[in-house]
């Protein structure tokens, strides 16, 4: 069995001069349709109509087998002459090869064995496992063996494709422990395997195209990142693996275009489950597999989207830089390495400290899990758990209710500032109490705008987000801004100098042309220094002639500009936007939009929670947390219940459990009520006596504090008149200090002994409430 196809293995093939574009290499995104009419067979059209797991479609009988390597004559060539016939590698974003466009990021089948062609023509459409005909009937796929069956061939025949998982009779029987005999194909018919089957039995590779280029000799090469089937990993196939699951590896190789067979589709979980009729070549990929460390890691969606953004956003530039790179060094290896950052090879040569370079951590590959934990994959969420997952603060809801007006205003502000030809700087000050969606609104506006930039309806701009609380010192803001603009790290003084130059004289910073820049300053009040120079400098930039700078400042206090020096407030305080606290209807709407389609909460419970929070603070985070906590409590209760009753009735857990008023009530208690009353109620006998005598004495004297000397005397007189043992003074001192530690009382340190001053930290009514009907020491109520 051959290992990864390497350069040496691939047959040199005659050049296929299909350059992606003619003339000056322009962005291919704009001209992505193949220039030449596609003569050869395009595999995408029948694939669309091929069958797909459990969901069905009518099969088109028309299919023509595709041979991976078409005869030379059939190979279409591009009409456009290569504009750069020099001896350099030329990188492309998209290559049309055999009439099929291959783009970076596509997944493809790759030949694994030299004799892969011996399998001959590969069936595009699978045959039924029972009648071994293709036929124009609906087929259903078994979720276990992935075999296809005509609905009519099944016994009993199915009328339509069943919802949910479906397992064929053979697999079911096998699971029961029976020996089953699959129907044998007629002798004359050779079983043909589809590409998918070959892949899953490791006769083919699947790979993701990372980069495409043309060698000086005219052959097309691509750098690919392999996909792996679960059987090939160190952990083997795990019980939770799906049949169509693949792992993305961190192993790459350069292969020639010839060994590529055709497209397949590797999807992330969301797309996979939404995919309906994508055909047979659909695979599921959720994890990345580290071939060196044999560990798994989820593929983060943010990662992918960033990559896409980068690729799509500055397409031209990307190509330019690639070209210039390839002119300077012929070898792409180096560049790839720097681009990847976490390359294994790099790591081996010189060990770098993990925390010393931001964004690039060396040795991260060790973190992956050795096995994918089963509970993550196989767990069926209950309604409550789904509700909890939706209430997590981190989840960005699809729609942001109740803030449309503010968001429109922000959008108008940013658009107005950027689209202005002069692009004069402007400032916007946003204020509001925590948890009212200030940052979230700005970020979602920026997301919307960046999609507009992509669509080409807006000028590109750069966006810098800075949080005042995350800066080590206010001066560091210069450093961060400069780094974001130029990519270089310098000290803050130098950064300030450069930034001043850039904004006032328009001197280019970094490689990029000076774009308009949107600077989001979160927690603005943290940038305050004694002489307020940082804020002054920052807010002075927009007034400079070449700044093209738009500043959005966010803080909690509404009168921050007034508190600043007049020369700063005149610069920043002109345009303001207030985020008021949410009222209860808004909070209710926010919670309800998150919980849409999940039946876990009682209607009044949500209303209760939102009313309570609206009355206290109007903090949406708080409201969500209370609901989540309530769901938690309900979940806990239910799980305890089900574990108790498991013996008697195993299906009791199926009973639905709604989050009710009681749960919300106790969650609110937990959040809003200080726990001191409970601590007082459960504290030791002596501390109760001490508290009561303190209240008594303070009431008598009318003062707010008492010395220990006096308190101890009161305690002993109370004790003696109620036939208690009179405690020693040192014991009393200890008890007092313990209460002081819990901050039920405030007291000076114990070394002051009889001179120690004590104070109640809570109103004396609380003490009275807590200790009034104390069953242990009933005489206490006399003194309250």
């Amino acid at each position, binding site marked *: 069995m051959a290992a990864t196809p390497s350069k040496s293995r691939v047959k040199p093939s005659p050049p296929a001069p299909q350059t992606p574009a003619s003339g000056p290499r322009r962005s291919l995104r704009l001209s992505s349709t193949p220039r030449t009419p596609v003569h050869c067979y395009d595999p995408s059209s029948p694939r669309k109509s091929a069958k797909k797991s459990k969901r069905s479609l009518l099969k088109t009988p028309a299919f023509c087998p595709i041979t991976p390597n078409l005869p030379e004559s059939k190979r279409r060539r591009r009409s456009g002459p290569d504009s750069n016939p020099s001896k350099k590698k030329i990188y492309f974003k998209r290559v049309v090869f055999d009439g099929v466009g291959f783009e970076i990021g596509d997944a493809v089948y790759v030949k694994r064995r030299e004799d892969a062609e011996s399998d001959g023509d590969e069936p595009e459409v699978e045959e039924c496992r029972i009648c071994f005909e293709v036929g124009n009937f609906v087929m259903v796929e078994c979720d276990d063996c992935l075999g296809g069956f005509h609905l009519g061939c099944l016994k009993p025949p199915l009328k339509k494709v069943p919802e949910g998982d479906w397992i064929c009779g053979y697999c079911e029987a096998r699971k029961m422990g029976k020996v089953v005999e699959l129907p044998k194909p007629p002798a004359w018919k050779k079983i043909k395997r589809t590409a998918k089957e070959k892949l899953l039995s490791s006769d083919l590779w699947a790979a993701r195209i990372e980069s495409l280029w043309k060698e000086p000799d005219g052959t097309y090469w691509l750098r690919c990142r392999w996909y792996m089937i679960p059987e090939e990993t160190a952990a083997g196939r795990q019980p939770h693996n799906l049949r169509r699951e693949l792992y993305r590896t961190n192993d790459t190789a350069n292969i020639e275009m010839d060994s590529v067979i055709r497209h397949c589709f590797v999807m992330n979980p969301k797309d996979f489950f939404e995919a309906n009729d994508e055909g047979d070549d659909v695979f599921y990929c959720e994890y990345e597999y580290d071939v060196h460390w044999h560990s798994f890691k989820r593929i983060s969606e943010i990662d992918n989207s960033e990559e896409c953004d980068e690729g799509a956003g500055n397409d031209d530039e990307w190509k330019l830089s690639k070209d210039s790179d390839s002119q300077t060094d012929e070898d792409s290896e180096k560049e790839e390495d720097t681009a990847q950052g976490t390359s294994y090879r790099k790591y081996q040569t010189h060990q770098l400290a*993990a925390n010393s370079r931001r964004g690039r951590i060396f*040795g991260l590959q060790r973190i992956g899990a050795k096995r994918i934990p089963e509970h993550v994959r196989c767990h069926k969420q209950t309604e409550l758990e789904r509700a909890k997952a939706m209430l997590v*603060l981190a989840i960005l809801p699809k729609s942001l209710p109740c803030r449309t007006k503010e968001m429109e205003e922000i959008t108008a502000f940013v658009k107005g500032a950027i689209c202005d030809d002069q692009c004069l700087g402007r400032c916007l000050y946003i204020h509001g109490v925590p948890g009212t969606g200030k940052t979230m609104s700005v970020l979602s506006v920026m997301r919307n705008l960046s999609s507009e930039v992509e669509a080409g309806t807006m000028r590109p701009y750069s966006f810098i987000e800075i949080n005042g609380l995350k800066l*080590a010192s206010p001066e560091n803001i210069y450093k961060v801004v400069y780094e974001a603009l130029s990519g270089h790290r310098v000290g803050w003084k130098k950064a300030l100098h450069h930034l001043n130059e850039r904004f006032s004289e328009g001197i280019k910073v970094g490689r990029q042309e000076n774009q308009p820049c949107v600077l989001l300053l979160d927690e603005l009040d943290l940038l305050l220094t004694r002489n307020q120079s940082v804020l002054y400098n920052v807010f002075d930039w927009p007034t400079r002639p070449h700044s093209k700078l738009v500043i959005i400042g966010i803080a909690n206090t509404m009168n921050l500009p007034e508190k600043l020096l007049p020369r700063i407030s005149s610069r920043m305080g002109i345009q303001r936007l207030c985020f008021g606290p949410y009222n209860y209807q808004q909070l209710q709407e926010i919670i309800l939009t998150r919980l849409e389609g999940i039946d876990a909460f009682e209607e009044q419970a949500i209303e209760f929670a939102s009313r309570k929070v609206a009355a206290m603070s109007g903090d949406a985070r708080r409201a969500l947390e209370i609901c989540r906590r309530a769901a938690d409590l309900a979940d806990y209760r239910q799980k305890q219940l089900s574990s108790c009753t498991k013996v008697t009735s195993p299906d009791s857990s199926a009973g639905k459990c709604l989050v009710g008023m009681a749960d919300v009530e106790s969650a609110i208690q937990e959040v809003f009520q200080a726990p001191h009353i409970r*601590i007082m109620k459960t504290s030791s006998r002596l501390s109760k006596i001490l508290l009561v005598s303190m209240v008594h004495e303070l009431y008598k004297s009318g003062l707010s504090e008492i010395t220990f000397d006096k308190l101890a005397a009161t305690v002993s007189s109370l004790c003696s008149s109620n036939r208690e043992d009179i405690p020693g*003074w040192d014991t009393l001192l200890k008890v007092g200090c313990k209460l002081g*530690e819990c901050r039920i009382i405030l007291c000076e340190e114990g070394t002051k002994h009889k001179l120690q001053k004590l104070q109640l930290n809570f109103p004396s009514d609380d003490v009275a409430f807590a200790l009034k009907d104390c069953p242990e020491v009933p005489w206490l109520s006399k003194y309250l």
Partner: protein
Amino acid sequence: MASSSSFKLAPASPSAQKSSMAEKALALLRSRLRDQSFAHGVFKSSPDSNYSKLKFLISTSIAEGCNNSVLLLGPRGSGKISVVELVLADLSADYPDMLSVIRLNGLLHSDDNCGLKEIARQLCLEHQLLFSKMASSDDNSQFMLDMLRECGLAHKTLIFLLDEFDLFAQGKQRLLYSLLDAMQTLSSQAVAIGVSCRLDADQLLEKRVRSRFSHRKLLFIPLTTEDLKVFLNHALYLPEDSSFSSNYVKEFNSRVKIILGDKKFNEALNSLSNVDGTIGNILRFLYQAVSYMDLASGLLTLQNFKSAILCFQKQPKLDIVKDASVLELYILVCMNRLETKEQNTYNFNSILKEYKAIHEAYKTSDHYGRTVCSRAYEHLLEQELICFVDGKGRHLSNECRPVKLLVSFSELCHGLKSNTSCPAILQKLLDHESFK
């Protein structure tokens, strides 16, 4: 001693066997009482215990891959940290290789930069990465964010255990903010556990930090009497199926049963929990009592517990007065007289004057020179029965600095009564004052 003799003698000797058995029993009891996790292990199965609540909370955030933050509040000695450790140990057995714990202590890491650095250091240590001391705090906080993401992607849960949580809430709270803010992202998977004995710890948080905190609180309260009984049964009985001979176990357990049922024992326990009923205090008491066990008999007696409770009821100040020398008593009484004369500031010289006045008025036999008196005075200062009034006269010599009496009047009375060498005149002087 006992063990060495058992080696010398033939192993058949019953007394030697018994004492070695007793040693083993003692070791077992001590190991039980030494760590609080054993005590909390007793209440594992009850659904209302903090153990099961905390375990549920952490395990759901592992299983559901979400972020959580929780605050454990309760007086010192109520077993907050030991419950956390118990939960973490059990969970890391349940989910091997999926937990990594970062431990921070407010006493050490309340400084933001230092805290971030410590987080980075422990993260590096945990994942065998190279750590650089030189990294700036920006780098470290970025590293923390990256690690949170990467660990979340690898289904690993990071647990931040912040001991003395209230101390992190000083200053700008940058550490807490960046930690809690980092936990607002989807890809991270972390639990922040704050442990504090201050009940108002969450009120100390700044409002934007508080808004990000999820406000779960677990309250640790002292054991109830029933729980205490259950625990005592659990802790003091020897196991029947063990290497101990069954006769010994039977005898030992029957003794323990008698002790536990004894009225005196319960009184002692009550007087202990009247002062401080936290589990830490009770464990300390039991440990002391068990340590008094007579190895020859190998059995616990009620006397063991009685002598242990005496240790816990010591009044150190009274004891010092009890053992003080005659001259020291004179000085204390003089100071007390000055205070009752409402002379608020006084120093060594005025005390000496008072002392001489007493001497002349009552013609006592105890007359000492100034240097001797000054030595006694310094001794009292060292024992902190008296102290200088702070802030005043720091540049003056000891003799001129104003002082204050730290012993209260009733303590002084008690002390004088129990002091055997106390002259009668001092008692009289004090009594006289109290009548006035």
